[in-house]
């Protein structure tokens, strides 16, 4: 357990939706938020949705957690996919929101089994498609 963890609970639906994304691949992404002292699913994106649709789903001045199923082609022309976990904490978010999300992250991430790459972003440039691509390879 991390030092100074918040003790925030995780709603069962988070795990369920994540398993569906991982195993059945019926979602492109999931956005999670903290509400009433637990982490809940805020939004899911269908497999047709793009990375732009995903980034547009983040509020400009509030924190969120998210997972994204990223499809890409390797240098050897091989079709692959990787599951990203992105913690969104914009500079403009209230300090309280930043503290709550950061101190609950470790516990929450442990519930999601199968994350391959992790990112934390405080502005859109830190989670640009180029960065996602470079981290996937």
């Amino acid at each position: 357990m991390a030092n100074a963890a918040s003790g925030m609970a995780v709603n069962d639906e988070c795990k369920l939706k994540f398993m569906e994304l991982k195993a059945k691949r019926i979602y492109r992404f999931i956005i999670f938020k903290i509400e009433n002292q637990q982490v809940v699913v805020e939004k899911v994106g269908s497999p047709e949705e793009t990375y732009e649709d995903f980034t547009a789903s983040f509020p400009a001045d509030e924190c969120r957690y998210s997972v994204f199923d990223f499809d890409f082609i390797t240098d050897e022309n091989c079709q692959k996919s990787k599951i990203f976990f992105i913690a969104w904490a914009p500079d403009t978010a209230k300090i309280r929101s930043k503290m709550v999300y950061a101190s609950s992250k470790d516990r929450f991430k442990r519930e999601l089994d199968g994350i391959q790459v992790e990112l934390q972003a405080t502005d859109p440039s830190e989670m640009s498609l180029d960065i996602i691509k470079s981290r996937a390879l």
Partner: protein
Amino acid sequence: MYGGDEVSAIVIDLGSHTCKAGYAGEDAPKAVFPSVVGSIDQMEVDDAANTDTNSGAAMEAKSNAKTPDSDKNKGKRKLFVGSQALGYRRDQMEVVSPFKDGIVADWDIVDNIWDHAFRECLLIDPTEHPMLLAEPSSNPQQQRERAAELMFEKYKVPALFLAKNAVLTSFASGRATSLVVDCGGGSTTIAPVHDGYVLQKAVATSPIGGEFLTDCLLKSLESKGIKIKPRYSFKRKEVRPGDFQPFDLDFPSTTESYRLYSQRVIASDIKDSVCRAPDSPYDESAYANIPMTPYELPDGQTIEIGSDRFKVPDVLFNPPLAQTIPGMESFSEFALSARGLSQMVIESINKCDVDIRRELFSSILLAGGTASMQQLKERLEKDLLEESPQAARVKVLASGNTTERRFSVWIGGSILASLGSFQQMWFSKTEYEEHGASYVQRKCP
């Protein structure tokens, strides 16, 4: 589990220079006062009391004196805590710190500081409030247990939590992984935090903090013939209507440590008002002709500060520079062994796992009292860009809000302790009674 979220918790961040204390859930600490205290030896007084113990009246007087005040006489000395008590000059009063090399060496002083915070600043009954204490990132187990013992046994607090400075700062900036550069009063600490854990092996500390810079400024001004008169050493009198002149007062029984403390208070204000980190390493000749900045001392004399404005902050980046300041030679040994800020950052990151170095380089958080120094963030970022590996994307972050920058540790603790979900995380009195002080390691890892 501690279930009392009805009363608000108390958050205390006892730094090497300043103690920050207040109610959880608030935006800033209610009480901010020096971590050093005044101390007067009580030898003679106690001896006098012992000689007439056979008289019943004296016995009664002694037992009546069993107020919180009598605790302060422990170790045959009287302690004076808080800005006001310290601001008043007393004969033979020494200024002492509870810390030695960043960890608590004198628990009696800490006890008095806590007591002052509870009873004189916050006006609370500690038995009713859970306490969250911020602690240094590499606080030894023995120290943590000592803190738990004192809190539960003496103050009888219902619950306690020890949170690490660096973790609180990191979380308060929205990051579970970051490199925290804490430029404090007594020292500078670099601590990598990964997913809420402090990577202990990579923590780096240097004794160069705000106070060292203050001393550099003080000595440098003295070498130029500028004498900073402590506030107690003169009185300003109106000689003609509207015309005030300082008159020197003589207090031969003032201790050297108190005189220095009083001078530092002034020098520290000069530093905060005029100093600024230079854009590139300080160069004597380049700054020889810079315009002077005026500063009015408390005694009314106006002094002019030139190159020292830039030279003093540069000591953070280049400690051996302190040797060129007359009067600072005594520190030459540690100024030589201490490393510069950017060098420490790079060394600390290189001690971490290769996989997280990139992330650390892009989340360097600047916090602490000295972090408010003008241009410090920009200079650190510039130096790191030059010295870091090519692929690294260097980003130094500091809250734009000076209160948040200065009190990031306290604010992080304040938010954490006020969360409904956190109430199950406290180390409760019942758990302490059942498992003992060592259980603090389990509850507050």
